[in-house]
């Protein structure tokens, strides 16, 4: 391997990137390169338009050859973005890839400062620190560990279903974990999908049964991920399987037990129908549920409540599948990659936006409730009717409920305009009612979406541009009597209107699930400010997370429609497969080790390691670090009183030289 370690023969190359004008507009890159050229041991210093481009990387390789460079500093963007790229270039140039350091003069300098002189000075400081630091770098070797080829998919909505099927089709074992009794997620509640108006069930339910029948998929519904340990390629997950009081293996889904239940009629709000219908304590969430296995709700079942039920369900089940003593179980699995597709929840307007009358005025519905009403397997068999069973003559659809407002959620939920158009079409088609859409901006950015909007315009649906101020049942004129009145400023007409309707539909937005923060902690990933899971890079790594081996799919990352969700789920599956098919993963060599000669055997470090990677060797009276267990945080290094623990890539000398140099320019 090229390059020595002694200070005497250090030959450093410094490369200052313009990043187009991203850096060059705020940092005087020529001056920076000039100053870098005069720094100790610097043999070559250049500035270049795009260091990450092929010619930029070639330039490094050429200089390594021509000038016998043995250390490289690149001052460009964040190392979190391109450190890998440049390490690769350095390696291809014949040097150890860790004879390299990056100075972040874009994210931490050019982009955040407004004074060119100050930004230029800062860039020089950061490069001086990098130049001195890189002199201390040692040749390191990457550790490789083998990858477990199994994948855990969390969430059985369309995102999780699609990802699971793709991975399973590639021949890998998939564990699909779904919290609810059935997979299908939100999509299973929809009647039609925009803009093609194809039936949601017709495209979803075949995929649901594929999941059930796939030899490579282990499906655990009514289950949650209780904990995850380990790291890329080698995760250990604990899955909590909640009791449904029915033995899944034995039940054949004949549904006789539901028929036999002591409750002759449904009595409790049916969650699947958004509470618009009633179910029994013994139930199946919906007819096409996967798995076709009933469940007992212990909160309402007479046996659990009083212990005095005659249990007709038990006597009717000739498979003996009912098990009132079923207990929660924990399954432990090992996987190499994880795809998270935990989805979203819809905005609840009850307390947060009382002016729209939801739960106050009878005929104010959320869009999801209306999805159930228009659905032929819904509580009314597809009839759009008011609470009293009559048909509405006029329906108002209010866009952006809970979205695009600093008082509620600031973001656009992306799907509401389009699903509002879809509902407008379906309601108009079924009831012939006058349908009014109240919108702020019409957002139809997708294939066939604008065309769908045009179609609705031609169908005679009314569009009023304005954010609705409120919904009231207080009539001012006779034709408002007994109806709901929508008050809105028509911003195209330039006047305030009162529009009487019989039914109000609130197009509620999408938001992170209430427990997204707990899920985030379980998987050690991050959330963006609004609470959706954070992708590694918004453009270049949209399905990866900051934790290697954990990928995102669907609305848990941000609101998106079904085509985008499926595309992202496919991408997440491809990422997971790409990782697994490598067979092994290279780990950062930033682990710590103990210099046995220096170790005093004080044991200070032992209790600090969260991974129990440090053990005390009694015979030698010295501590030792198991490199395979060390994750490279450096906590023990900072605590060692004798300075005998060394962290690769973050050695004391390296950090001290950075401190010294960022402060040396007085």
């Amino acid at each position, binding site marked *: 391997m090229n390059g020595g370690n002694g200070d005497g023969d250090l030959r450093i190359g410094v490369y200052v990137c313009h990043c187009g004008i991203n850096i060059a507009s705020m940092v005087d890159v020529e001056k920076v390169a000039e100053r870098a050229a005069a720094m100790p041991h610097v043999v070559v210093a250049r500035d270049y338009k795009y260091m990450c481009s092929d010619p930029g990387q070639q330039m490094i390789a050429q200089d390594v050859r021509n000038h016998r460079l043995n250390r490289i500093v690149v001052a460009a963007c964040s190392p979190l973005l391109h450190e890998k790229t440049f390490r690769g270039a350095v390696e291809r140039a014949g040097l150890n890839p860790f004879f390299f350091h990056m100075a972040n003069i874009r*994210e931490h300098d050019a982009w955040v400062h407004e004074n060119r002189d100050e930004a230029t000075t800062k860039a020089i400081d*950061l490069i001086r620190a990098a130049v001195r630091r890189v002199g201390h770098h040692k040749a390191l070797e990457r550790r490789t560990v083998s990858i477990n080829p199994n994948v855990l998919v969390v969430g059985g909505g369309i995102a999780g279903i699609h990802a699971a099927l793709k991975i399973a089709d590639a021949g890998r074992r998939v564990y699909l974990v779904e919290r609810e009794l059935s997979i299908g997620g939100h999509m299973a509640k929809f009647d039609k999908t925009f803009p093609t108006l194809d039936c949601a069930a017709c495209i979803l339910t075949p995929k649901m049964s594929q999941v059930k029948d796939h030899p490579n998929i282990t499906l655990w519904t009514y289950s949650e991920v209780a904990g995850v340990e380990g790291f890329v390629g080698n995760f250990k997950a604990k899955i909590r399987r909640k009791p449904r009081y029915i033995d899944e293996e034995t039940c054949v889904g004949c549904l006789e037990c539901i028929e036999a239940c002591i409750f002759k009629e449904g009595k409790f709000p049916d969650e699947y129908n958004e509470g618009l219908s009633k179910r029994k304590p013994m139930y199946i969430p919906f007819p096409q549920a996967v798995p076709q296995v009933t469940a007992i709700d212990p909160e309402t079942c007479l046996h659990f409540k009083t212990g005095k039920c005659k249990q007709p369900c038990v006597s009717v089940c000739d498979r003996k599948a009912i098990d009132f003593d079923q207990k929660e179980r924990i399954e432990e699995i090992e996987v190499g990659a994880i795809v998270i597709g935990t989805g979203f929840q819809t905005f609840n307007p009850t307390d947060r936006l009382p002016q729209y009358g939801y739960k106050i005025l009878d005929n104010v519905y959320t869009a999801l409730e209306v999805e159930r009403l228009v659905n032929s397997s819904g509580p009314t068999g597809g009839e759009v009717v008011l609470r009293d069973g009559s048909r509405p003559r006029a329906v108002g659809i209010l866009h952006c409920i809970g979205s695009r407002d600093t008082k509620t959620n600031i973001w656009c939920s992306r799907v509401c305009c389009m699903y509002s158009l879809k509902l407008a079409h379906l309601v108009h088609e079924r009831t012939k009612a006058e349908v009014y859409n109240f919108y702020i901006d019409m957002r139809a950015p997708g294939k066939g979406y604008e065309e769908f909007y045009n179609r609705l315009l031609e169908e005679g649906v009314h569009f009023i541009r304005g954010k609705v101020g409120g919904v009231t049942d207080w009539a001012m004129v006779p034709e408002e009597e007994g109806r709901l009145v929508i008050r809105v400023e028509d911003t195209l007409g330039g006047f305030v209107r009162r529009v009487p309707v019989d039914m109000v539909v609130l197009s509620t937005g999408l938001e992170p699930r209430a427990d997204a923060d707990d899920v985030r902690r379980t998987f050690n990933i991050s959330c963006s400010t609004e609470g959706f899971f954070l992708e590694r890079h918004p453009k270049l790594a949209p399905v990866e997370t900051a934790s290697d081996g954990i990928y995102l799919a669907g609305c848990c990352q941000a609101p998106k429609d079904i085509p985008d969700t499926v595309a992202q789920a496919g991408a997440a599956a491809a990422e997971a497969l790409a990782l697994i098919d490598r067979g092994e993963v290279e780990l950062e060599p930033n682990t710590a080790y103990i210099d046995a000669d220096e170790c005093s055997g004080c044991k200070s470090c032992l209790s600090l390691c969260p991974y129990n990677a440090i053990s005390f060797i009694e015979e030698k009276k010295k501590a030792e670090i198991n490199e395979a267990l060390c994750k490279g945080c*450096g906590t023990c290094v*900072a605590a060692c009183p004798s300075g005998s623990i060394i962290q690769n890539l973050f050695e004391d000398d390296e950090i001290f030289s950075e401190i010294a140099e960022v*402060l040396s320019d007085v």
Partner: protein
Amino acid sequence: MSDREFEPRIVAFFCSWCTYTAADLAGVSRMKYASNIRIIRLMCSGRVDPQFIMDAFARGADGVLIGGCHPGDCHYISGNYKCLRRFHLLKRMLSDLGIEENRLRLEWISAAEGDKVKRVVNEMVQQVRALGPLDLPGRFGEWDKEVRELDARIQQEHDAGPCEAHAVKESQA
């Protein structure tokens, strides 16, 4: 110090997973903050050796900022708690050395909180600017000078003391 207005120099130690990423986000979002800060990346705030902080002050930093993941969010489970422990111990020592409290700051900043990086940096620069230069190297120089002067005086008294008496005795003899 020159006639120019005092510009504080702040060294920051940010953990790679949360705060360093947040600083990247601040950049990507083009937020603007004071340029007085120099960020050094560590894998975890648990790696922040108190010596790094002392060294920074000794080399002329006017303030030191440490950034880590929020409690419970540490990528390495508990490194940030270890950092917190050391931070409190070090703070006591710094006050004994006459280094004002606001010169050392620990902040939990998650990867999503680019705006917090901006706020914290700006706040800290403002506070440290109000405190004025720490100039620990200068103070060391003064302390060294004082010690040297004291040494010299002791030496002088020592020379003058018994030696003089001795000299007097000798002359009498």
